[in-house]
């Protein structure tokens, strides 16, 4: 060992002697995982190629989705599909005919037609999107105080005046009636919830098995992970990832089959199943459409998504760029996305290495036009969109970070001028970045 080797060993050793763990690292890591899950929204991040930079056993790493599959036949002629973002260096939209003539839009980071302008002060408006805060569900002028502890995680409206809440950490569900009292079976239901738009039934996903319940919590049908046929070769069946529910249209549940890159349509009323080509990211019941990831070209850092009609299989458009879609508007007219994500290649960032897009991007589904964008102050984060949902009134309900880190709920029409719906509220555990946000917006 050379003198330099020895000195190096000593210097490294010396500089770690003062390093001490003084907090609950495991608890903070678990909290961060929950926070990451919120951001990644399962399949969306995975399909975007934002898989975790994690070493996994060979059998699994080989099964990461590639999205390789034949493209459905598109329109016979190329169609112009403007982004609505004038670009000083190129056309405002890159519309390139592809071999299948799918209208293709490149999200190049040019300014959107409108920018989110958060408001301050007291509430001056209301929202059509129900939300939960402080153990109370707010549904327009109605307030339902939850009797008992409540659940912080997801909220969905069910038929018959019922509400479904799922705890983010425990994945246990709470079914309450219009008085806030618990209803449903005596045993706790566990799993990640996907709810039909009309609230007539919901599906809980637990370890790859899907269980459908009616709005009263009665079990209707089960799709066991063992029927998934999605265990990679060489991997034990007990490790099957099973199904990943993406969305519901009518009585049909759409779910991805593990990492096979294939999906299934499971009709809960008839119990019939049929295969669906390709993985899905989001499904919209109002228009019967889905966001589908496209295989990344070799050597390209750019990810692309397609909007596809699930009935005809027709691809409506393809959008390429650093966006992760998070939800449809209720009527399917818009898609909400974020441009802030981990793991982007340098080519997908601005020259100063900032994100091309902010935390909220609203895309019109008819032509992939980006109509509204929201981002906070780069230095302080004030004004950052944290979570959002868009109702049928073409207004986005946004939980927004204030100057001090507190969150307010605001409603923002497509011109970007927001109005406060609910006042600033402290996060849970505000001293750590992953502290829970106070407002939970309804999924349907």
């Amino acid at each position: 060992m050379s003198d330099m080797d020895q000195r190096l060993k000593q210097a490294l050793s010396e500089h770690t002697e003062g390093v001490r763990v003084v907090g609950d690292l495991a608890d903070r890591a678990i909290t961060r995982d929950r926070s990451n899950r919120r951001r990644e929204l399962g399949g969306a991040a995975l399909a975007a190629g934002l898989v975790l930079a994690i070493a996994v056993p060979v059998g699994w790493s080989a099964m990461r989705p590639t999205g390789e599959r034949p493209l459905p036949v598109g329109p016979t002629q190329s169609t112009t599909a403007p982004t609505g973002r004038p670009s000083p260096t190129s056309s405002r939209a890159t519309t390139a005919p592809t071999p299948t003539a799918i209208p293709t839009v490149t999200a190049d980071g040019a300014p959107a037609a409108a920018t989110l302008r958060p408001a301050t002060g007291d509430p001056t408006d209301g929202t059509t999107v129900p939300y939960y805060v402080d153990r109370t569900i707010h549904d327009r002028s109605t307030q339902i105080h939850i009797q008992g502890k409540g659940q912080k995680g997801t909220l969905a409206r069910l038929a018959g005046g019922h509400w479904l809440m799922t705890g983010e950490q425990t994945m246990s569900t709470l079914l309450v009636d219009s008085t806030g009292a618990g209803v449903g079976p005596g045993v706790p239901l566990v799993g990640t919830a996907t709810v039909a738009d009309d609230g007539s039934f919901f599906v809980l996903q637990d370890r790859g098995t899907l269980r459908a319940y009616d709005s009263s919590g009665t079990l209707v049908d089960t799709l066991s992970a063992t029927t998934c046929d999605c265990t990679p070769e060489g991997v034990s069946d007990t490790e099957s990832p099973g199904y990943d529910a993406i969305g519901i249209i009518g009585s049909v549940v759409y779910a991805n089959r593990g990492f096979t890159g294939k999906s299934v349509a499971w009709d809960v009323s008839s119990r019939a199943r049929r295969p669906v080509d390709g993985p899905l990211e989001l499904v919209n019941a109002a228009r019967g459409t889905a966001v589908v990831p496209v295989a990344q070209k070799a050597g390209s850092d750019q990810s692309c998504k397609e909007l596809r009609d699930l009935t005809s299989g027709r691809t409506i458009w393809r959008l390429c760029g650093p966006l992760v879609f998070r939800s449809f508007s209720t009527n399917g007219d818009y898609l909400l996305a974020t441009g802030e994500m981990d793991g982007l290649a340098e080519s997908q960032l601005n020259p100063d290495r900032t994100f091309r897009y902010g935390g909220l991007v609203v895309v019109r589904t008819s032509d992939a036009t980006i109509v509204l964008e929201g981002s906070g102050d780069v230095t302080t984060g004030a004004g950052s969109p944290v979570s959002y949902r868009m109702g049928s009134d073409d207004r986005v309900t946004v939980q927004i970070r204030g100057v001090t880190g507190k969150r307010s709920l605001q409603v923002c029409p497509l011109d970007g001028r927001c109005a406060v719906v609910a006042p600033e509220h402290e996060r849970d555990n505000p001293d750590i970045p992953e502290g829970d946000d106070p407002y939970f917006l309804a999924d349907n």
Partner: protein
Amino acid sequence: MDDAERRADFTAYVRAREQALARLAYLLTGERDAAEDLLQNALAKVYRHWDRVRAAELPDAYVRRIMVNENNSRWRGLLRRHETPSSHVLEVLDPPGVAGLDPTASIDLWRHVQNLPRQQRSAVVLRYYEDLTEAQTADVLGCSVGTVKSHTSRAISALRTSMSEATA
């Protein structure tokens, strides 16, 4: 394994290994806040895949690899950049000094290590602090043994040059 058992199992692992992991995070990043962020993000990913990580023959090797990959992803932390923690999980005290090593020279060397390109610094930390073999280091870095040799040799050469310039 249900969620409670999984959480308890993961917590037990972290408690047993946290000092070593914290020190590795500090060496890879060179500063407290970045080390804290790296450690938590890496462990969050470990927790996500805990069933598979715990089944591995050498879970530490997986965790190291996740930390190095995570550190090499320069965009880590951008998503949390707006929320600064006010309660820290790491504390870093000034080094006490090592007998036989000039404190000034040690600080200079440490500073030069921090200025190395990330891959070279990772290779140096894994080889000289974690005492991994070249093959083990290659496994963690996800590269060939030849690349590890190259990273290490370039790093040592750069450190020699930097130190000799500093003392000239």
